[in-house]
C-alpha cells in the first residue's frame, strides 16, 4: 500500500511539532515573567515577554568564558574521540586477532558502570596524572577533555565498527591492486565512507561533553574561570527557591549551540556513498 508522500509529509510535520513542543515551552518559560511560569492559568503564549531571565543568565560571572570553555572541550572531544575510534574500529573489523572479541566486549563493559561510582577513583587519578602532566590535572579543561574522550570512545568504536564492517573489503583490495598504500586506503577510502557514522558519533560525543554536569563539578573545584556551561545553569537551582525563568533561559542557551553543530554536520550525516560501493 503506497501512502502518498503528502500524507507522510504531514505526519512528519505533526511529529516534529509534538517533539519540539516542550522545547518551545522551555523558551516560552524563559520569556515569561515569574508569576506566569507557575500559574493557574497556563497559556502557550505570553503577553508580557521579557528578556530579564536571559539577562540574569548572561550576567552570571564569566558566562562568556563558560561558554567558550564548553565549546573548546566539546570540539576537542569530538575530534579526539572520532579519530581514536576510527582507528580502533578499523583495527577491530579489518583484522582478526585472538583478543578481538575480548577487546570489543571490554570496550562495552566500560560503559556499564554508573559514572557516579567512578568519580572518587577518577578524582584521584586525575589529581595524580595532573602531578606529572599539569595540562590534564584537576581544575583544567584538559582533564574534562581526557575523561570525555575516554567515556565516548566505547560507543564511538562500536558504532564505527558497524560502518567500517559495512564497507566491503573488496574495496580495499581494489585499491591495493591499484597500488594504494595502507595510509591512503585508510584515509582516502575508508574514512570518507564512514562519514555518516562519524557524523552520528560526533554529534553523540558533542552532546555528551556539552551536557556533562557530573565531571565538570567533580574536577573543576577552585578554578572558576575554567568552568563550563552547566555550572551557569546550576547557579539558579536553590532548594525551595529555584529561579525557573533563569533555569529555562540557561537551558535554551545551552541547547542552541548543539543545534548549530548538528546543522553543520547534517550534510555529512546523509552523504551518500557516491555509488562507490554500489554494485
Amino acid at each position, binding site marked *: 500500500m503506497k501512502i502518498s508522500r503528502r500524507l507522510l509529509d504531514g505526519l512528519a510535520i505533526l511529529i516534529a511539532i509534538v517533539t519540539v513542543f516542550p522545547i518551545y515551552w522551555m523558551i516560552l518559560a524563559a520569556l515569561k515573567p515569574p508569576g506566569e511560569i507557575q500559574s493557574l492559568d497556563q497559556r502557550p503564549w505570553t503577553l508580557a515577554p521579557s528578556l530579564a531571565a536571559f539577562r540574569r543568565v548572561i550576567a552570571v560571572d564569566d558566562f562568556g568564558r563558560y561558554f567558550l570553555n564548553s565549546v573548546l572541550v566539546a570540539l576537542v572531544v569530538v575530534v579526539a574521540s572520532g579519530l581514536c575510534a576510527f582507528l580502533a574500529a578499523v583495527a577491530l573489523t579489518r583484522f582478526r586477532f585472538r583478543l578481538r572479541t575480548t577487546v570489543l566486549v571490554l570496550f562495552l563493559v566500560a560503559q556499564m558502570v554508573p559514572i557516579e561510582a567512578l568519580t572518587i577513583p577518577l578524582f584521584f587519578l586525575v589529581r595524580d596524572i595532573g602531578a606529572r602532566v599539569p595540562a590534564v590535572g584537576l581544575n583544567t579543561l584538559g582533564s574534562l577533555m581526557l575523561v570525555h574522550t575516554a567515556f565516548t570512545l566505547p560507543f564511538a568504536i562500536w558504532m564505527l565498527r558497524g560502518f567500517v564492517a559495512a564497507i566491503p573489503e573488496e574495496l580495499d583490495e581494489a585499491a591495493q591492486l591499484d597500488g594504494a598504500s595502507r595510509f591512503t586506503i585508510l584515509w582516502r577510502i575508508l574514512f570518507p565512507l564512514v562519514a555518516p557514522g562519524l557524523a552520528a558519533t560526533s554529534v553523540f560525543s558533542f552532546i555528551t561533553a556539552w551536557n556533562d554536569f557530573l565531571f565538570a563539578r567533580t574536577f573543576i573545584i577552585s578554578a572558576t574561570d575554567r568552568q563550563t556551561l552547566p555550572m551557569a545553569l546550576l547557579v539558579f537551582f536553590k532548594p525551595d527557591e529555584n529561579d525557573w525563568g533563569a533555569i529555562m533561559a540557561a537551558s535554551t542557551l545551552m541547547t542552541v549551540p548543539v543545534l548549530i553543530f548538528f546543522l553543520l554536520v547534517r550534510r555529512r*550525516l*546523509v552523504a551518500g556513498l557516491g555509488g562507490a560501493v554500489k554494485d
Partner: protein
Amino acid sequence: MTTVVAEPHDRLRPRRRTWTPWWLLLPAVVILGALFGYPMGQLGLLSVLDFRQAQVSGGQPTRFLGLANYARIFGDPQFWSVLSATVLFAAACVVATLAVGAGLAVLLTRISKWPRLLLSLAAMAAWAVPAVSGSTVWMFLFDTDLGLVNQTLGLDGVNWMYDRYSAFALVGAVVVWHSFPFVMVTLYAGIEAIPGSVLEAAAIDGASTWRTFWQIMVPILRPLLAIVVIQSIIWDFKVFTQIYVMTRGGGIAGQNLTLNVWAYQQAFAAGEYGLGAAIGVVMMVILLVVTLLYLRTLRRTGEPL
C-alpha cells in the same frame, strides 16, 4: 609489538602481514586503559572496603569488609524491588525508543526535503536539551495544578505521579523523547548507506514498506541495530536524571526508584563510596550478563561479531 594477525585467515591480504592492528588500537587502548582500567580496579577494591568521605580525606583509616557491602545490598528487600522495576522500565523504554526511532528513520527516507529537515531539527532539539532541563519542562507541563496539560484537558487535580504506573509511563515517555533521536539518526545514516540498487529492486518487486523494512533493511542493518539496542539497554538501565527530577527523588515512598537513583540515595549522596562501588559492580555485572546473552543470540542468528 608483535604481529598478532593469524596467517591462515589473511589469505587475501598478504601485504598486511607486517601491519599490526595494535598500532591502530593504541590510542584508544591507552586512553581507555588509563581512564577506565585503573578506576575500575579501584572500584572493585573499594567495594570490599569501608570507604567513606572520612576515609577519603584521610581522617579515618580504611577497613577491609570482605563481602559485607554486597551482603548489605542483596539483603535489602528494597534492592530487589527496585531492580525488578528497573529491568521492566528499561525494557519498556528500549522497545519504545527503538520502535519510535526506527519508524521515524524509515519515515525520514520517504518524505520531502523540508519536512525531513524540520523533523531532524526537532529530534535534534530533543536530543540536545540537557536531561535536567527537559525533565523539568515535562514536569511543568504535566504538573497537577499548574500544568498546561491538566488545565487544557480539564483534568483537575490529576496527579500523574501519584500512581506508580502512570508515573513510570510519563517518565518513560520523557526518556523515549530524549533517546529516540539518537536511534533515529543512527538508523537513518545506516539506511542511507544501503546501496540504492537493493532498495530499488525491492520496490520493483512490489514490496511494501513494512516488508522492505523487516526483510531487507533489518538484515543489512543488523550490526548497527545490535549496537543501538545494546547502547539503549545500557543507558536506559542506568537512567537517573529523568526519574530523579520528575518523581522528585523516587516518587511517593520510593515507588518509582530505579537502580541508579536508589544507588545515589543510599550510597553516593550519603558519601558511602564503598557501598556505592559495590552497587556499581553489581550493576555492571547485570548489564554484562544481559549484553552477553544478547550477543549470544545474535551470534546464533549468524551475525558475525
